[in-house]
């Protein structure tokens, strides 16, 4: 064996590490991401009482209408929710998206006041005061958003606020494409 090849070993190790770091930086890898096991599976149970007075509680049937649905967990105390709110308003008004909002660990009067102030993009709104529904949906906090297709299969799970880019690259194509 050529002994000189051994001298290349440290260099090769360095190249390997540099490659890994470059990939981590450039490919948008997020080591803090915990992923989601729900994607590709039927949406979890949606059994939550209505946020607004006089409306029937939300049920699974809302997720199996044949039309794609957006499920958004939010809270009035959550600042990133405030940031993403205009995007949902636009999705509801301009793009006609069906959005189900669930107020997570949020007292209904506070959530309702918040929605009155900012506009209410939710066709259906639920109140998950104790976070039980959130747990069933694998929620780690608010805001989180799920794209559910017409058959009730979760197609995408955003942890954290959605962005303009998410809307253009993922949500709008999903609304057009999903049956």
């Amino acid at each position, binding site marked *: 064996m050529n002994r000189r090849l051994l001298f290349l070993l440290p260099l090769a190790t360095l190249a390997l590490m540099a490659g890994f770091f470059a990939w981590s930086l450039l490919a948008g890898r997020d080591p803090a991401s915990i992923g989601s*096991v729900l994607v590709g599976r039927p949406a979890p149970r949606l059994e939550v009482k209505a946020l607004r007075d006089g409306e029937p509680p939300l049920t699974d049937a809302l997720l199996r209408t044949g039309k794609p649905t957006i499920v958004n967990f939010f809270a009035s105390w959550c600042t990133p929710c405030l940031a993403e709110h205009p995007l949902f308003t636009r999705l509801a008004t301009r793009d006609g998206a069906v959005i189900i909002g669930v107020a997570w660990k949020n007292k209904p009067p506070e959530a309702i006041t918040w929605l009155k102030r900012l506009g209410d993009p939710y066709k259906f709104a639920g109140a998950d005061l104790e976070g039980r529904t959130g*747990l*069933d949906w694998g929620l780690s906090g608010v805001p989180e958003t799920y794209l559910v297709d017409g058959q009730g299969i979760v197609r995408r799970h955003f942890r954290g606020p959605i962005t303009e880019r998410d809307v253009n690259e993922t949500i709008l194509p999903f609304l057009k494409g999903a049956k």
Partner: protein
Amino acid sequence: MMRAAALLLLLALFAFPALAVEPSELLPDPALESRARDIGRSLRCVVCQNQSIDDSAAEVARDMRRAVRERLSAGDKDEQVFAYMVARYGDYVLLKPPFKAGTWVLWLGGPIVLIVAGGLLLIAARRRKPIPPPEPLDEEERHRLDHILRDAALRAAPQDEDFREKPHPEERPQDASRRVG
């Protein structure tokens, strides 16, 4: 002063990380509660990277602790409780990852590296030729060596009487009888 320091040290020995489990969450049945603690210690809080749900004060961790206790009270086995959490949060929620297709590198990587590197080292050690023992000096060479060594020693410490009184066994000086002892 010393006593205060000793007291502080003693107190530090008794400092344990505070659990985030609140008294109101506890189950009345101590056996179930202790199972809940065992499970809680091996479930990862999903918003705090590397903390168990028992250690975390996060909202989600509290919900998860409550869910664990609800499942146990409903008669679930420990494995069922873990399965319940994995179905919602994935393997991420387990502080000890399961052994399966995606994680075998994690589990076997260390031992494999050890075996491969150890094996290579062993092969390299076996292959190495032993160093041949030096050829013994012949009579003349030994003589010369003795001379060289003695001269060098004398040069280094010419005033050392004791040294001069310890001659080489093969070349006793004439006055060896003068030696003490």
